[in-house]
């Protein structure tokens, strides 16, 4: 049996939870076993039904007064207990921050290997898998030797799709938590930002070292505001202290997916590119026609961004005015 650990919010699966089940269906097919799912912290019937639509034959729900909020020790303890009791051949979660964190704890508890962010898994006598390295710039094929395969699938490695959609069996799973499992429960939750954020902005105006100064970003701010978007930047800019790290796009920053990414004065290093490549369209503005960002973009303007951006702002304003 393949046990899929589901990510959920309220009484619905998150997109990551749906992806894990979609990925899990293919994997279970290759293994020749059923998909069962685990929901930690809720037994909402809508959630159970949705897991069924996405292919879970059985849904195990673990509820407990101390499982209402997240904690890596508490959640991994539940998964460990499920592994001991349900004896799955493999356990899969989605490679979100939490998914990877919980599975790493489970692996450490069992002293077993854990393969993070797989994009393809071939079960067999010896399992092989392809996983993401360098935030997506490189892939690694590896072999796994384990009693139970502990895996996460890379976020967006598959597009979530419902399966045959049967109402699953619901089983409630009794959990026992120790004091040690409670040390890392979330103490407080603070909500900060409302409105358009960098990961969800329809337009991102990114600036790199070519912008030249912190002040230079005022033109990018103006254009982003005009287009209802947000400013992004490269790591070179963050390291120079011109913009906060929350604006950084890339492997160690934010992954963006706007309708259009306007990348100005950015060379397009691979670590920046992996954060930008989910953009539906890319327009590069650069003095260097050979820059990687230009070569990989859909459109480019060759020139000094300090001349090109004000001209774009003027043109947008002129067309809106008329």
């Amino acid at each position, binding site marked *: 049996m393949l046990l899929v650990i589901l990510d959920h919010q309220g009484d619905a699966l998150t997109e990551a939870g749906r992806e894990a089940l979609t990925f899990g269906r293919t994997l279970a097919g290759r293994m020749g076993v059923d998909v069962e799912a685990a929901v930690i912290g809720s037994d909402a019937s809508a959630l159970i039904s949705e897991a069924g639509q996405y292919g879970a034959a059985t849904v195990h729900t673990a509820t407990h007064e101390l499982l209402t909020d*997240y904690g890596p020790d508490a959640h991994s303890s539940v998964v460990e207990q499920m592994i001991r009791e349900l004896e799955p051949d493999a356990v899969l979660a989605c*490679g979100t921050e939490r998914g*990877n*964190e919980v599975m790493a*704890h489970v692996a*450490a508890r069992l002293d*077993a*290997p*854990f393969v*993070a*962010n797989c994009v393809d898994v071939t079960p067999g006598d010896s399992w092989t898998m392809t996983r993401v*390295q360098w*935030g*997506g*710039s*490189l*892939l690694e*094929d*590896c*072999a*796994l030797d*384990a009693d139970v395969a502990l895996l996460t699938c890379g976020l967006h490695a598959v597009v979530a799709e419902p399966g045959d959609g049967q109402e699953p069996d619901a089983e409630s799973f009794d959990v026992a938590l120790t004091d040690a499992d409670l*040390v890392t429960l*979330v*103490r407080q*939750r*603070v*909500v*900060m*930002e409302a409105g358009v*954020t960098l990961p969800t902005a329809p337009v991102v105006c990114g600036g790199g070292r070519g912008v030249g100064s912190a002040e230079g970003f005022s033109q990018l701010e103006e254009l982003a505001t005009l*287009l209802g978007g947000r400013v992004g930047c490269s*790591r070179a800019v*963050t390291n120079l202290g011109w913009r*906060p*790290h*929350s604006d*950084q796009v890339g*492997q*160690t*920053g934010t992954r963006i997916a706007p309708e*259009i990414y306007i990348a100005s004065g950015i060379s397009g*290093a*691979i670590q920046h590119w992996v954060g930008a490549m989910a953009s539906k*369209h890319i*327009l590069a503005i650069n003095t260097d026609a050979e820059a*990687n960002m*230009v*070569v990989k973009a*859909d*459109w*480019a*303007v060759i*020139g000094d961004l300090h001349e*090109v951006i004000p*001209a*774009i702002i003027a043109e*947008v304003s002129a*067309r*809106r005015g008329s």
Partner: protein
Amino acid sequence: MRILCCVKRVPAPGAKINVTDDGMAVDAAHLGFTTSPHEECAVEGAVQLVEQHGGEVTVLTLGSGEASEQLRYAVSVGAAHGVLVDVGSSDWDPQRTAAALTEAIVALEQEQPFDLILFGNESADSGGFQVGIRVARALGRPVVQGIKGIEVSGDGSAAGTVTARREIDGGFEVYELPRPCVLGVKEGLNLPRYPTMKGRLASKKVEIPEVATSAVAGGQQRVKLHRPEETVSETVILGHGPEAAPAVVDVLAELGVL
């Protein structure tokens, strides 16, 4: 406060990452090397805590002898000691890496435990998302990942707590851990400083002791590295300089973002 940071030496590729002919490593023949970015912030965070509360920072790495370069860099920005587990390569599997680091930490803690141990959330190259968690569990200490804010209670030593902030969609979560504890931190925790002249001198003089390891291979082994398939698109040049603005705005209008 005694703080330990575990850092990894990684190549610093540019436009793309090349792989060696046997597929077993990144071809770093023409590349510089750096410390994994999350861990650079771990070192900076540790140095700042010590500046506030007193104490000292130790950095530990597992890799080849060349990785002492990254330890020396950490000393140049304020760490006091660097310790190397020289295994000839930093490509050990995560279980083995964690076992070797745990062994080294136990040896370094013979007299006194570290009040806080910092890891990166994930290493820049292999990104296994697990070495810090494995070490923490082996040491029997609480650990939380994804940390972008750290505060310690009291003077930082002995009993007390660490309050850690983790960024989530549209806000953050707060954790409170008893010391000693372990955190996996992310870039954005702070803005790492550049070395001072005094720091550079100290980094040249510092002794880098080596510790041995008996860790054995884990259950995950590399078969080969390869690049993902790329879709090559033809770039349409809309023009040169400000004259291209109308063509740019046509594109924006076409995409419906105007």
